[in-house]
């Protein structure tokens, strides 16, 4: 290592000057992208997208772009149709890995669409762009009118001494997906006040008039009504924002269509959700707020897909 370093510094003759070179320090600083820089990348992205002009972005030469799991040329798909942005914008980041993502509402020829965009930034250039776009009619539930501003809990900062490790936060969220697969809410560390919003619609706790009644997120899982989601894989955790206690999971729910009903204690045999009826999958970008080591708030962008359709990043 030392030999390589010396060779890089004019064979060692100018070792002292090289190590302290202002040029070198400045370049290193130029190449890093802290939280403010990453959040600025999201602003640039959204502005370039609504201007239909990818050339406004600092792109790496081999940048990869996907929308709903399909690799496309940057400038195609939502880049061609995006109209004005809504007021809803939720940005979070993991500066240690150069990763940043946002949820945003965008108008598309008169209809609201919900966008999740994840960027990977290396040396201040965007190398990866992953997007999911929930639109009607491909998504069975969507209400962008409900999304005017992010829930403030997603923006709260966790005191520095109280931040769990990345590994612990990922493990906490992993238990949520295990609980879905197993139909067991008891293994998931839910906060008693946990709320889940999917494509702008609250899906737990339920309302008194919903088929399962006003059950909590955990109690819903324990009815086994969601076990038609036979597996949650692949599971990726591209962003863990320890400062804000957030984990972004990008996963695929697989529904083989082999189980359509389930016996729910106290309610008899119930028909499972629409997606239990035939082989299909959903691609999901799900953001979790971890508070006091429990899942306090969930918000998700969900897109319907063919059964086991690749997400483009496996």
């Amino acid at each position, binding site marked *: 290592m030392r030999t390589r370093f010396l060779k890089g510094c004019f064979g060692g003759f100018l070792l002292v000057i090289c190590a302290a070179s202002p040029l070198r320090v400045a370049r290193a600083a130029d190449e890093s992208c802290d939280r403010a820089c990453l959040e600025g990348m999201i602003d640039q992205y959204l502005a370039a997208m609504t201007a239909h002009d990818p050339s406004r972005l600092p792109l790496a030469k081999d940048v990869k772009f996907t929308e*709903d799991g399909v690799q496309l040329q940057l400038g195609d*798909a939502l*880049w*061609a*149709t995006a109209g004005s942005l809504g007021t809803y914008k939720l940005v979070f980041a993991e500066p240690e890995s150069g990763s940043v993502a946002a949820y945003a509402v965008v108008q598309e020829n008169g209809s609201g669409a919900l966008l999740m965009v994840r960027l990977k930034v290396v040396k201040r250039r965007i190398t990866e762009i992953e997007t999911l776009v929930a639109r009607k009619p491909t998504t069975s539930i969507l209400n962008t009118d409900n999304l005017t501003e992010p829930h403030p809990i997603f923006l709260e900062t966790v005191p520095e001494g109280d931040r769990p490790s990345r590994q612990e936060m990922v493990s906490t969220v992993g238990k949520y997906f295990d609980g879905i697969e197993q139909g067991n809410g008891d293994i998931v560390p839910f906060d008693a006040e946990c709320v889940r919003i999917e494509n702008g619609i609250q899906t737990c706790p339920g309302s008194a008039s919903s088929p399962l009644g006003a059950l909590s997120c955990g109690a819903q899982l324990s009815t086994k009504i969601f076990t038609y989601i036979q597996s949650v894989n692949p599971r990726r955790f591209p962003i863990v924002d320890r400062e804000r206690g957030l984990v972004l999971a990008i996963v695929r729910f697989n529904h*083989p269509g*082999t189980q359509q009903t389930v016996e729910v204690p106290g309610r008899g045999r119930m028909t499972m959700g629409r997606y239990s009826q035939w*082989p299909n999958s959903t691609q999901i970008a799900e953001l979790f707020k971890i508070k006091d080591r429990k899942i306090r708030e969930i918000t998700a962008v969900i897109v319907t897909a*063919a059964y086991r359709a690749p997400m483009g990043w496996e």
Partner: protein
Amino acid sequence: MPLKKGVKFTEDGQRLDVGDGFWRTATARGTYKFYMDDPVVEQVVFFGTMREAGNPVSLVLRLKIEDQQIAEIETIVIRTGMNPSRPADTGAEAFEKLGGPDPLFLEEIPPAERVSRDELARTANKYFSGMQLNDGKGDYSFFADDCSRIENGQLATQGRNTVADGAAPATSYTVKQGCRAQFETGLIHFVTRIRDRRFVVLDTMHGVALAFTFFDHAAGNTRTFQTPDGKTVTAGPTNPWTWEIAEAFKVQNGKIHRILAIFQRCPYGMNSGWSSWEDGMSDKARW
């Protein structure tokens, strides 16, 4: 089944293990059956109907045979909810009402009139080229006067008439028009790209060509265009999405007489699972 080692299987463009997907949910055969085969490349395609948990579905199935074993299995399964214009309709019931393919598809071409595989594919491909960013100004003489088109079991053209005898609304062609008249409106402009055109059956004995392909609707600034009479029109899908399609053509004497399509909505730009990304994005026909 005689499966070749390493057999590849896809359903709706996704690679799965044989035995997964529709293999786990299929419950019965339906009554509509249409087989198209190409012994030269040892491929056969089946258009038919099936039942899945009792619900009617349409199936497209391609098998590639090697050494008398199945080496490739490609399927499209059209289920309820996948067609935005007819969300409750898979096309299966409409196909079964038809009873079977138009008899013209099954008629042999007299030996003296048979054309090469290349010529058969080139004629059928004119349909895709004339539709992509359709402007109404092309040479559409490849349509026979008796041309008709069936889409997911429904007649999508006016009988056997190519004359524009159905008045088109200002922004859309209509099923009251013939094959050629629809193209002459210039209103199919919203099909922005027809890509990954794979002709997998070229049956020169029957004059049948069959292609798997994708119709993209980019829905951006291509929504606004000019028709041949100089009108500026804004029309077509409002967000990007794609049809995943298998389309069969009856070609005789250099003209298209029948078109039969099975298709469903899929994510914009999706790959078939059988093409490189570059070929999947190209509008060049392959066979």
